[in-house]
């Protein structure tokens, strides 16, 4: 069961999404709010797997909410829901550390799909944004990564899930999980987005 928290200034959007998500057998809307400053408290209380968050909140910046969630020991995955599909919002969502972006100018079905994808550990961004995630050449990886870990890192940065990485490298899921855990601790990151950003920016 995917537990979801909805945060959006617009009550009608929340009402619509709740109706849609409640009809799905594998999803449960655990909590919702129209006040962005309430999100961290609600996450504390309900421990959702996925937070669906509008970036354009009135009381607080969506990117600040994401940053606050990132500080938790087990942060939920964040799916940004926005009307803007331009470079500006993509960049903000990526830099803040969201796992995905869905559009209010696309069918709500897409949001539904994206919730399942980020829950499965995928990074959900348009193909074109990959230039910000993986496209930057140059720079060296931290010295103590094994060649296998570097390989896994590149694939994590490319938005692949553990099972997809396992298939690509001909390894078992558990082995990949093991490599990913080591990779995260060596990189000093908490999740796939941070690992991907580190791959993009510094290496």
């Amino acid at each position, binding site marked *: 069961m995917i537990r979801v928290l909805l945060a959006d200034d*617009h009550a009608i959007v929340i009402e619509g999404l709740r109706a849609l998500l409640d009809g799905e057998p594998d999803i449960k809307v655990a909590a919702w709010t129209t006040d962005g400053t309430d999100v961290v408290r609600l996450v504390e209380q309900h421990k959702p797997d996925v937070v669906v968050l509008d970036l354009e909140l009135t009381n607080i910046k969506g990117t600040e909410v994401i940053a606050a969630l990132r500080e938790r020991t087990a942060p939920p995955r964040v799916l940004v829901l926005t009307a*803007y599909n*331009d*470079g*500006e919002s993509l960049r903000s969502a990526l830099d803040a550390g969201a796992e995905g972006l869905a559009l*209010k*100018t696309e*069918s709500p079905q897409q949001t539904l799909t994206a919730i399942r994808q980020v829950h499965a550990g995928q990074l959900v961004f348009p193909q*074109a944004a990959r230039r910000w995630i993986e496209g930057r050449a140059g720079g060296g990886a931290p010295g103590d990564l094994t060649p296998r870990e570097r390989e896994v890192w590149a694939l994590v940065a490319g938005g692949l899930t553990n099972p997809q990485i396992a298939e690509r490298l001909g390894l078992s899921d558990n082995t990949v999980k093991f490599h990913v855990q080591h990779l995260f601790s060596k990189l000093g990151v908490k999740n796939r987005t941070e690992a991907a950003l580190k791959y993009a920016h510094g290496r």
Partner: protein
Amino acid sequence: MTEVRDAEARAASRRLLATSERELQRIVLDMHDGPVQDIFAALSQLQVLERALAADPTAAQRAAQAVRLLERALGEIRNFIGAFRPPGFERRELGQIIEGLAVQHETLTEQAVELELPGELGDCALPTKIAIYRILQEALANGHRHSGATRQRVSVERRGLAIALTVSDDGRGFEPRRVLAREEDVGVEGGHFGLRGIQDRVEMLGGTFTLESAPGRGTSLTVELPAE
């Protein structure tokens, strides 16, 4: 005396550029706060309804048709917002807004953009930044609509005191003279301001405009604008 008047006219033009961006920002915001939220919410409800109507094919079909219509309306709003929303001119440096525009173009059109941006490009004056952004946007849209090319190349660099933008493709090309003549008396068409509009923006800022194209020979557009 003439010089003073020219300088005043130029300063007024620059202010006008920033003002029209602010107006666009307001219109986009109204679209965002109103219709987008309403249609998205309505679609969510309709999709629930569509499922509930599974036992009644005729009614389900009507609901599905309503869903399609609303999705189309949203799609149009998406294109409108994509074309008009100012990209945070005051918060982002020139290179970043250009990179953002390239990503946006690829997302919307699936046409590749090869981007050449020097790391030390730095920032420039607001009117120039706005002009470079809007000119690049128009050039990319033209290249997508008319060139038939699968990719476009974009480069931005400093040339002395100027910022130079070049957009090129190896698509079907055209006769610049004829297209410019045709646009002479055309107003704003479909939200795009055409080559003439690009020229006007360049002149407003005292820059230069070079267009090289011929049928079958691709197109290359270069503008140079004062950085400050």
